[in-house]
C-alpha cells in the first residue's frame, strides 16, 4: 500500500503502472455512482460496483468470493460470510484511522451507557480471535471495517394518521393498526423485515418474545402465522427490497406507513410529501454497515482494496453519507467536509439554519426543518434490537419466504 501524505489528495494514476480494477459487491445503500466516481478520481483506480438486493449480495458474497475484492454490507451478514470462509481478516494496522473509529462498533458502548445486546451486536463479530472465530475481545484483525450505520424505524404520512393514533406516542404497533389496513408496507429482507414485523407484533400486544433478536421456532411460527393472517386480510400493500422501491410506494400513494431506510426519506422530501420518521417508544432497529475483504484478494488489488477502505474513513464519504441521514464510524473526520449547519442538522438533530444540500443536489433540506429523533446519541442510544441473523435464521428465512409467497 502506498501511504498518502494527505487523506483526500488525489493519488496520481502514474503511481501504478496500470490501472487496477477493484470490484465491490454491495447494495444501493452505499454503492452510489457519485461515490464511485469520486473514489476513482481520488485513488486512481478503476472501480466496479456490483449491486444487488440484500439477500442476493449475501448469496454472492458467500458463494463467489472470487468475483469481488470488497464486500460492502452489514455486520449481521458476517454470520453468513465468515463461517463460509469467504473473507480474509482485515489488519487494523493497515487502517490509518482505525483509532478514530468511535466506541459503538469497537466496544458496544455509546458514551457511558451500554447498548442493547439484542440481535447481532456488531462488536461481537468484529475481532478475529486466534482460533479464527469472532468475538469482542480486541485483536489486531477484524472481520469487517465498521463504517455506515443508522437507527431505523418507520415513516408515515401525517395526514393519513387516524385520529385515534394521533394522540398516542409513536409505536411499531402502528404498522399493524387496523385503521391503516391496506396502506402498509414492510421490507422484504428476512433478517431486517422480520425484526420490524416482530417489533410491530410485540408492540401491538399480539405476541411476547423472550429475545426479539433471537426468536425460537415457536415464536417464528407464531410470527409468520400472524403476518400471513394480516396479509390475507389485505393489510399489506407491498414489500420492498431497495429504498427506491420504498420511496416509490409512498410517492405513488400506495402506502401511508412503512418501515424505511433513510435515503428513501430524502426521496420523500424531494417529492414534497408531509411525513414523519417515527421515534418509536419501543426503540429503533439498528444496523451497522461496513466493508470486508474477499479471501482471494491478493497483491496489488488487495492493496487497492485497503486504499479504498481507508478512503472511506477520510471524511468525504462520511459527509455524503450524512447528507442521506446515515452516520459514519469516525464522524469527526467528516465534519471537515460538512458545513456547520449541515453538522448541526444531521448529527446534532438541530433545526436547519439554512437550506442544506443533499448528496448530489444543491437543495434537500429547507431552512427550519428538523431531523426526527434528535441527535446522534439520542437516536443510536435508543436501540431496541440490532439487525440479526438468528440461531434459527435458516428456518426463519424459509418461513419468511412462505409469508412473502402467501
Amino acid at each position, binding site marked *: 500500500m502506498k501511504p498518502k501524505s494527505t487523506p483526500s489528495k488525489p493519488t496520481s494514476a502514474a503511481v501504478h503502472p496500470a490501472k487496477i480494477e477493484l470490484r465491490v459487491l454491495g447494495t444501493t445503500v452505499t454503492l452510489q455512482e457519485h461515490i464511485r466516481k469520486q473514489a476513482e478520481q481520488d485513488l486512481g483506480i478503476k472501480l466496479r460496483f456490483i449491486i444487488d438486493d440484500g439477500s442476493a449480495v*449475501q*448469496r454472492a458474497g*458467500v*458463494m463467489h468470493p472470487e468475483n469481488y475484492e470488497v464486500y460492502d454490507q452489514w455486520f449481521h451478514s458476517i454470520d453468513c460470510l465468515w463461517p463460509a470462509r469467504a473473507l480474509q481478516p482485515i489488519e487494523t494496522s493497515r487502517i490509518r484511522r482505525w483509532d478514530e473509529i468511535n466506541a459503538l462498533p469497537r466496544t458496544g458502548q455509546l458514551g457511558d451507557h451500554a447498548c442493547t445486546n439484542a440481535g447481532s451486536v456488531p462488536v461481537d463479530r468484529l475481532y478475529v480471535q486466534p482460533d*479464527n472465530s469472532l468475538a469482542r475481545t480486541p485483536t489486531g484483525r477484524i472481520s469487517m471495517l465498521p463504517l455506515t450505520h443508522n437507527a431505523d424505524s418507520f415513516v408515515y404520512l401525517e395526514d393519513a394518521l387516524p385520529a385515534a393514533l394521533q394522540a398516542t406516542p409513536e409505536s411499531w404497533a402502528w404498522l399493524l393498526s387496523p385503521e391503516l389496513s391496506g396502506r402498509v408496507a414492510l421490507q422484504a429482507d428476512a433478517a431486517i423485515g422480520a425484526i420490524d414485523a416482530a417489533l410491530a407484533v410485540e408492540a401491538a400486544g399480539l405476541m411476547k418474545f423472550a429475545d426479539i433478536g433471537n426468536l425460537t*421456532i415457536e415464536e417464528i411460527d407464531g410470527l409468520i402465522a400472524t403476518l400471513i393472517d394480516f396479509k390475507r386480510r389485505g393489510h399489506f400493500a407491498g414489500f420492498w427490497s431497495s429504498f427506491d422501491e420504498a420511496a416509490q410506494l409512498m410517492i405513488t400513494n400506495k402506502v401511508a406507513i412503512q418501515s424505511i431506510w433513510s435515503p428513501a426519506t430524502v426521496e420523500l422530501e424531494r417529492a414534497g410529501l408531509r411525513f414523519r420518521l417515527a421515534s418509536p417508544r419501543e426503540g429503533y432497529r439498528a444496523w451497522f454497515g461496513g466493508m470486508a475483504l474477499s479471501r482471494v484478494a491478493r497483491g496489488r488489488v488487495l492493496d487497492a482494496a485497503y486504499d479504498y477502505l481507508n478512503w472511506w474513513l477520510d471524511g468525504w464519504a462520511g459527509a455524503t453519507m450524512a447528507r442521506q441521514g446515515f452516520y459514519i464510524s469516525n464522524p469527526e473526520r467528516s465534519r471537515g467536509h460538512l458545513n456547520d449547519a449541515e453538522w448541526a442538522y444531521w448529527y446534532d438533530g438541530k433545526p436547519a439554519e439554512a437550506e442544506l444540500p443533499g448528496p448530489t443536489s444543491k437543495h434537500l433540506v429547507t431552512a427550519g426543518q428538523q431531523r426526527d429523533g434528535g441527535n446522534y446519541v439520542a437516536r443510536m442510544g435508543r436501540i431496541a434490537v440490532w439487525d440479526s441473523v438468528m*440461531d434459527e*435464521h435458516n*428456518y426463519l428465512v424459509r418461513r419468511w419466504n*412462505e409469508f412473502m409467497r402467501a
Partner: protein
Amino acid sequence: MTRSARAALKQPTRTDKAAEPVIDAMIDTDKRLRYRLIHDQLKSAIALGRIAPGLVLLEGPVARIFGTSRVPVRKAFEMLHADGLLHTFEGRGYLVAGADGSAPEPLRAPLSEASLGFEQAQAPLELPSNSERIYHALEAAVSIAIAFGHYRIDESAAATAFGVSRSAVREALSRLRDFGLVEKSAYSHWLAGPLTARAVAQDYELRMLLEPAALRASYAKLSREMIESAFADIERAIRDPGSIDADGLQRLETTLHVECLQHASNKKLLGTIDRALMPLTVNHAFFNAFNLHPEPATLVEHRAVLRPLLDGNIDAAADALLDHLRAGQKRTLQRLKVLAVLPEPDLPAYMQRIV
C-alpha cells in the same frame, strides 16, 4: 451400528449434486452380480498395489463399504483367495497378499474406501439391490431438502419415479425414519425437515452425554494399531489440511465418532448416538457446497482425543471428546445459518414442499 452411521455419514457426499442424476444412475445400473463386482474391484486394487499388503479384510466392514449384505462379500473373498490374492491366517478374515504373492504380517487398520484403494470415496459400486438404491436415493434427496424447509414425501410418486412398488418405497422410508431423517405424521404422510438449530443443538447435547461414555465402554477393545493409524491420519491432515476434502473429513469423523466407539457393548447406547448424527448432514452439505477444507481447530481437537488414547489415558480422551463436541456444536450452528443463503435446489417431484 456402523452400517447406519455410515449411511448417515455418507449421505451428504451426494448433497452437492442434484438428486435426479443420482437416482438416474442408480436406476440405469443393471442387475450385475454383486459378488463379481466386489471381486473385480478388490482384485484390481490389489493388483495395482493400492491396498496395503497384510491388511486384514473382514466381511462386515467391507460389506458396509460396498453397501451390500455379507453374502456377496464372502463369495468375492473366496474367489480372491482362490486367485491367490488373499490368504487365510490364524484370525478372522483374510490377509491381502504381498506383491509377490507372499503372506505378510497381519495389518489391522480401519477399513474404508481409502484403505480399499478406491480412487474416489463415493466409488462404492452402484451395485446395491433395488431397495438399497431407493434407500440411498431417498436419503440423498431428503438430506438436501431438510436444510431448505418442510417436505412431504409422496410414496406413490416415489414408487413411479423408481419404477418399484409402494411397499419398496415404504420399506426404505421406514429405515430413514429409524435414523430420524423422516417422520410419519398421524395423517400417514411421510414428512422431512425442516432442519432447525434446535434439532442440531439437541443432537449435540445427546452426543455430549453419550459419546464420552461410549468411548470409555469401547476403549478396552480398541486395537493399538487402529488408534495409531487414526493418529497418523490426523497428523497428516493437520500438516496438510488442504489435502482433506469433504469426503476425507467424513472419514476422519467416522473414525472418531463411529469406529472408536463401536466396541461398546451397549447397542442401545450406540443406536441412540446413531440417531443423533444429523448434524453431520449440515456439516457435509456445508463443506460440499462451499468446497472447503477442514479448519485446523477441528483437526487439532481430534488429535487431542487420539493422543491420550495412545497414552492409555481414557479420562483425558473422554474429556477431549466432550470439548470437541462442544466446539463442534458451535461451529455447526454457525454453518446452519450460512445454508440460509443457498438457493432452494431442484428436488425430485416426490419431494413436495409443505407451504
